[in-house]
């Protein structure tokens, strides 16, 4: 990033702190590009790249008071981006580990007899009523229609990270409803 661009971002941030909406629009637009490049340089083209960009934008917006205009803007921005990126990486690792466990559990369940599956099916249907509409929709798409997380995310207009998290919470609620927590 050139020194002129750094200074320009600092000026936009200072105006954003004074609630200048035009400057805020421009700043967020510029930051999307800068943060995307920052994340891509560190972790490559990962599926959750936009999650990291969005998390950083939210953090920048929430914590905009913590930047002092007497200080350079870019080190502040990169510190926020780095922190959000680490959190997103940790979350993705946790979600990935849980997804693997769910897949194993599903495979184990398939080994049961058809009769047991029918009984379990009615139990699952009853438990599904405890889910919120978005949770139910995601479980239906993922588990009943066996669509991929990517498909579900694009069908519902959500990020893949969100779909994973909602699916995880829905499965936890289902287990609780079925007395298997």
């Amino acid at each position, binding site marked *: 990033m050139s020194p002129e661009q750094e200074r320009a971002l600092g000026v936009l941030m200072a105006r954003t702190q004074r609630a200048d909406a035009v400057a805020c629009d421009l700043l967020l637009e510029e930051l*999307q590009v800068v943060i995307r490049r920052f994340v891509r340089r560190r972790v490559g083209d990962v599926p959750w790249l936009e999650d990291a960009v969005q998390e950083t934008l939210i953090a920048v917006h929430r914590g905009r008071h913590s930047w002092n205009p007497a200080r350079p803007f870019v080190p502040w921005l990169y510190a926020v981006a780095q922190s959000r990126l680490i959190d997103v990486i940790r979350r993705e690792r946790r979600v990935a580990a849980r997804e693997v466990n769910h897949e194993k559990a599903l495979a184990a369940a398939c080994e049961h007899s058809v009769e047991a599956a029918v009984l379990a099916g009615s139990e699952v249907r009853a438990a599904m009523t405890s889910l919120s509409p978005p949770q139910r929709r995601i479980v239906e798409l993922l588990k009943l229609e066996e669509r991929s997380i990517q498909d579900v995310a694009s069908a519902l207009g959500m990020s893949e990270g969100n779909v994973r*998290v909602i699916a995880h919470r829905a499965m936890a609620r289902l287990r609780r409803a079925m007395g298997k927590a």
Partner: protein
Amino acid sequence: MTSQTSELAASLSADLGPVTPLPLPGAQLRRWGLIGGAALVATIVMGIRHDWAASMVAWPVIGHTAVLAAVAGSGAWAAIRLATPGEALPRAVGWPLAFGAIWLAWMAVDVALAGASGTLSEAGFGWRCVVRAVIGAAVPGAVLLVMVRRAMPLMATPAAVALAASTAAAGGLAAEWMCPNMAAMHMLVWHAAPVLAVVVAATILGRALVGHLASTGRVSLLD
């Protein structure tokens, strides 16, 4: 995905209000020193040890005071900087911890040198020292906590450890100047151990204590 990010940016822009930028870390430290220092001195003056005149020229008291003041000051400086993105790396917490280790080692050496007389019974029951430390640490700790939480403590655990070390050292200073018992074992058990306990607790509870960005709330809004 990218259009979603643009939508998010638009919604953030719509939710815009003016904010007052945080003062620079140096200005915050001066403010903490003025308010916290004044409160600590006032607390000490109200319950100062009866031998205070002699203590002012006693090497162990002067030495302990200097080291504890170093822990309190460097801890506050580290906590304020760690709570401001881009100002410090986690290793900034090293200075207060190093000064704190010197103080603890000093106590331990005193106990070892006391030999047979440094038994546990000599420690007595110094709950008053703990109360003095808590009262002495209350204002400096509260002021620093507010400063750290008002900033953006992305590195919550190191910031909490620095905050706790500074606050506990302020409490240690209060105990030092309000308690006339200079027995080595008493100092170790009732002056140093509570300070150490506070720092250990802050290490464990760091994120809960100061971290307000553990979750951005975005996921929970959708779920």
